[in-house]
């Protein structure tokens, strides 16, 4: 990807703090934030921070990864349903593919996702790791 400082800076709220838009009319929350509620078309939306814990809904282990991501292959990508029911797409870290199961509890962590060459912009974003129990 070709990243610019302004492009990365604009997404700081949604990528680092998991900011979403909540509709003040129908009460539903959607991530990433949008100017209009996709469920009822209300423009009466506010920015809220999402809960940082959730469960894995579905996942994949991606073996063919693009240039710039090779050191992380294979990538484990997932859709996580957070405690308030909002779903986010992200990467699972600190876990082996065979340990993952549907409904596994995970928590948000801030990690590097991409380096644009040696001198380019470094992109950070929220990823998820298993919550260790016991």
């Amino acid at each position, binding site marked *: 990807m070709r990243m610019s400082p302004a492009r990365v800076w604009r997404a700081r709220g949604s990528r680092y703090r998991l900011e979403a838009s909540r509709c003040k009319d129908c009460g539903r929350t959607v991530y990433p934030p949008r100017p209009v509620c996709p469920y009822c078309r209300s423009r009466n939306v506010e920015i809220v921070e999402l809960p940082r814990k959730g469960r894995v809904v*579905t996942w994949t282990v991606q073996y063919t990864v693009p240039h710039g991501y090779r050191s992380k292959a294979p990538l484990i990508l997932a859709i996580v349903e957070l405690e308030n029911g909002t779903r986010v*797409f992200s990467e699972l870290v600190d876990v082996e593919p065979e340990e993952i199961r549907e409904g596994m509890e995970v928590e948000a962590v801030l990690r590097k996702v991409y380096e644009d060459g040696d001198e380019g912009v470094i992109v950070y974003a929220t990823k998820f790791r298993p919550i260790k129990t016991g």
Partner: protein
Amino acid sequence: MVGVGMTKIDRHYDKDMRSLAAEAALKALDDTKGADPKAVVVGNMMSSSLYQQDSLGALVADAIGLRGRGALKVEASCGSGGHAVAVGYSLVASGLYDQVMVVGIEKMCDYPTSVVTAGLAQAADAEYEVVYGASFAALNALVMRLYMSRYGAKRESIALWPVMMHENAVHNPYAQLRFRVTVEAVLRSPVIADPIRLLDAAPIGDGAAALILASEEVARKLSDAPVLIAGVGMGSDALDLASRQDLLDPISIRYAAKQAYAMAGIEPRNVDVAEIHDAFSITALLSIEGLGFAEPGKSWKELEEGRYRPGDKPSLNPSGGLKARGHPVGATGVYQVAEIAMQLRGDFPGIKCGGEIGLAMNTGGVATLTTVIVLRR
């Protein structure tokens, strides 16, 4: 529709975009009695990302001797071709032009797989999906795992789809992969993005297809066997997967189908033959269900029962589908409409299904941008 033309889908290293587009477009012109298109609509996805080429309408129009005529490119990722047909149809239906050429063109074989894969990933959400390194296969894999989990669909039953597609493609001289595969071969092929394996996925290939559309009045002069475009529908879904209400409810397909069926005055059970979008095996299942050929969650069961083969109603993808005919992404939707037109005319050079009512369904992204086009003999 008064003329169709297409090239074999292949690694056309000897042909640039001008010559490949011209091969299909000139065949379509020669399929008519002297058509003179007043405008050219080009369906293409990756000329910009792979070839640094925009203004594709001018490149194609000039290459086929139509310099001076209006021309534009329509982009809807892998659904570009179907959307180009919808735009071409509306230019004629509006009365603006009496004849319009639609050309789908894609060249994908000049670059290594990793470069092409990155180009294809542009169909997904750049800021919230592709930034994590997600490939297009990975996004479809998320849907496939959820499908198998919710509906209890068996992996080996889903593998029946690529087996059927390869069987059909053996008979199609335009198809890219003209060989048979077995369920065992599908289940043993390398994992691309678990649970998607190599033989669940459409291949990378170059190809072009073209159609000539004309008003009803002009159509009778230009062809002895014009095919009627009886219904057209378009639909979209969220660009990103996570925010969709239900990942297994392909609303873009349902919306597009509803419009097209209503316009044509038909129901799903009236369709004799259809070409549907099957970039991955899971895409085929969602397409079948979104079009109303099977109940949600039941299409894999229908495959177990041997449905959708040539002679069934509907027969699905007698061409071999994206899986085996091939998937030159922005051209695919035009191939599908051309194939269905030839099925209804009775001159498709592969498996002939015949029938009165045909349908072509093309989608870009993970069922993100869909067109459904109903044809009548």
